[in-house]
């Protein structure tokens, strides 16, 4: 009986442990596969948010619903919509967004299976900088899906080349020996301007 339990338990534990880790090869592969779309989305997003900030969250992984965060100077409006709901276009128009640009961003997000797009303000030497932030869920295998803890690839697109150490970890410009953590995560180099991490949260 003990032997049977061991035969069952060992592969289950190995599978469980394997399902908790994500290789660092996959985000690089994801970036290479979706490189054109990612950079196109970055450009489109830059144009769409030139005057007003916007963040898009995909609420369900079947892409049936989404959430828009429309930001003015003092108020952040959060609206939930079904995918391609006409009401969404009306709302975007009302707040002065270019609906065709936002629609193209949404289509790209669906193609890349991205779940979150945002821009992030940060300050280097007191100067305001802005980076483009996009995340996508990792394709994971789970023995018991209801208990599954999702993981996401988070990509940062900087306007300027960044500093990295020998292991490819993003460094703080102000103190080059110090790692730069964003949302408490260490980011790794893809190229001079783009870096990634793997996280349990998509934003």
């Amino acid at each position, binding site marked *: 009986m003990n032997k049977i339990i061991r035969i069952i338990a060992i592969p289950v534990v190995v599978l469980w442990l394997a399902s908790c880790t994500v290789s660092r090869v996959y985000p690089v592969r994801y970036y290479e596969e979706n490189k054109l779309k990612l950079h196109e989305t970055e450009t489109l997003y830059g144009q769409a948010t030139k005057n007003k900030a916007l963040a898009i*969250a995909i*609420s*369900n*992984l079947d892409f049936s619903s989404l*959430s828009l965060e429309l*930001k003015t100077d*003092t*108020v*952040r*409006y*959060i*609206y*939930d919509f079904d995918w391609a709901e006409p009401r969404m276009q009306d709302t975007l128009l009302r707040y002065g967004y270019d609906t065709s640009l936002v629609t193209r961003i949404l289509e790209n997000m669906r193609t890349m299976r991205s*779940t979150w797009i945002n821009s*992030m*303000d*940060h*300050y280097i030497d*007191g100067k305001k900088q802005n980076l483009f932030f996009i995340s996508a*869920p990792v394709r994971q295998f789970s023995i018991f*899906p*209801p*208990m*599954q*803890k*999702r993981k*996401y690839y988070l990509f940062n697109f900087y306007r300027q080349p960044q500093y990295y150490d020998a292991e490819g970890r993003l460094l*703080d410009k*102000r103190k080059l020996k110090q790692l*730069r*953590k*964003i*949302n*408490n995560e260490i980011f790794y180099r893809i190229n001079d301007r783009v870096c990634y991490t793997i996280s*349990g*949260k*998509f*934003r």
Partner: protein
Amino acid sequence: MRRIFLFICLLISFFAEAQKKRVPGRMINDPERLKALSILDSLGTITPSTFWPNIKPADFLQNLRRNLEQPYQMNTGRNTSFCAFGAVSFTCLKNEPVRYVQCMIDLYRKGEGFYRNIRLAPPEAVRLAAGKMIFQGDLDICPADQAWYLSLAHRFKGYLNFFNRNYQPGDENNMWAATNLAKFNRMLRKLCKYQLKSKGSDLIRPSVPKLPEFLQEKLAQGEVYLYLNNSVFRKKNHNRLQKWIPTHYVVLMEIYPGQNGNWVVKYWDGGYKTLKEVSVRSLKQITYGITWVSYNTTSDE
């Protein structure tokens, strides 16, 4: 002997009653705000503080001025656990800007400051961290806010901080600064001397049959703070099993009926006023704590 006992009881109740009398104002306290700005003007420049080596005096004063001029834009950072301190600061800045400014100036100059009788005197590890935060949005360029939040987080402790009481760099994002409902209420009572009321707890949601109407009623009478499960309100992952615990404090600004039986909730959320339409069911699901303080008690402090 009996008379002395009665006299002591009367004395205690008299002082207790005197302490209960502070109430918030309906609008931003503009006369005090102007007075606080004139205090800043009269200061001109201040010398760099040895207690806060990473905060330049000019940045510090500029931050205080910004808070006074735009009190609703005081930022709690992108990923910190400062939301509860932000909600408390909201009412401090709105109602007592002079007290806030005086406390902050003392804190910078002497390394300790008093907000009423609450002493804020953070240790060196905390003081060294202020002014160095990065990737927290506008909080990056607000060193005075960093100092204020860190000092409050050091001063007020609850059971959530039991295993992490001493500050290490990066602790602003974790349990060191976490706040349970009782600690939040205690902060409001001690800093602002409010006679507040509260429903709910850290794990069990309050049983309020008509929650939106209840919040509307309390909001008409005073300030209302909500303790929410933000992982449901603003999803951060797609796990089927979500944590059913509250994680976020907000100041309720408005609540009114929306479309299809939903309610529109507008709340102050650390730098932003956020507006979202929610169903009554969702609102009940996310609300774990309601704290309110009335405008109506007479104030003579």
